[in-house]
């Protein structure tokens, strides 16, 4: 299984992705390809990303059962956690960090991106 999500990329790249993958929602592409085809598709995204960003996830034989790769700027950053890949979510502006957590702050101020 292969899933690609693109944001803010040129329309021609979105059309190109639709050549191989099914666009099930705006910017969300799914398909089932092996490593060679996956790398070919990723190469195309890398060439024509513009100002946008992209993420690609695919199933593989590791502990998670999947792996993923990113391109471009996004508030979600992949982090390596002792071999387990997680995602860190940056606050809106790095100059203005989120207020340190108040005990029992029930509502979160993030926009969920």
């Amino acid at each position, binding site marked *: 299984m292969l899933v690609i999500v693109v944001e803010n990329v040129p329309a021609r790249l979105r059309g190109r992705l639709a050549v191989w993958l099914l666009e099930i929602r705006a910017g969300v592409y799914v398909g089932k390809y092996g490593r060679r085809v996956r790398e070919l598709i990723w190469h195309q995204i890398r060439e024509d990303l513009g100002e946008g960003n992209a993420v690609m996830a695919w199933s593989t034989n590791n*502990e998670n059962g999947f792996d993923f790769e990113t391109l471009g700027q996004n508030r979600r950053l992949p982090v390596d956690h*002792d071999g*387990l890949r997680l995602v*860190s979510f940056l*606050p809106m502006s*790095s100059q203005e*960090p989120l207020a340190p957590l108040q005990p*029992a702050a029930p509502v979160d101020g*993030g926009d*969920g991106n």
Partner: protein
Amino acid sequence: MLPPLKPIPIKDRVSVVFVEKGQLDVLDSAFVVVDKTGVRTHIPVGGVACLMLEPGTRISHAAVVLASRVGCLLVWIGDGGVRLYASGQPGGARADRLLWQASLALDDEARLKVVRKMYSMRFQEEAPARRSVQQLRGIEGARVRKMYELLARQYRVDWKWREYDHTQWGSGDIPNRCLSAATACLYGVTEAAILAAGYAPAVGFIHTGKPQSFVYDIADLFKFDTVVPTAFRIAARTPDDPERAVRLACRDAFRQTRLLHRIIPAIEEVLAAGGLPVPTPTAEHVEPAIPNKEALGDAGHRG
């Protein structure tokens, strides 16, 4: 409305996640680690067997509640794995399993059968006949020392003996430190499995007198095909940060040996060798007024 959270089987989970620093909390119903710059990292606790909290972490009440709802064992550990405290699924939620385990441990004949089964599972051969638990432990100790030597030679590690000061993490040579880090990972996962299956970590058959006696018994079954080779392989490379390198490698070893798939069946197999039936409730017992719901999790999970 979302349906209530339920634990999923331990075999479908990722083995262990270490958290070094940050505030663990629940934001938008998800388990997050927030660092002091406000960066938050989600941890999919429902898909993790055991979460290791190192010094430098703080955890909120809401986060502990969420971890326990989804059956993730929280283990508070000291620097690099010296165990301090644990929670998440305390006690085990199945009295029938606890009583069965206790009855096996209290019956000398059954206990010997369980110990013999553990021996045969570890060394892939029958335990010598007519030996007491005490004698089997002696034979086992000698074999274990030999296995350490053999594996050390195989991985070209300079090995003297298993020696460390359990109060001092930095003590001991590199191979010993690697081994301690690796066994700490294995103990966490094993304790999570024992609790998930509904047994008591303190009721041991070979080991006794510790909150984790049964954990040591079960972990010993898997030690030499998972963490010991891994620890020696890492020790041979003498990395800068041996503990971290070992943890990374343990994750792979647990996956390759399908540890989380095998561990609960192994516990049942070992105890079944005792030959005692699982106790049934007596006529005087009161059945639950509200029947238990069908759940996806393992027998010891509170659904």
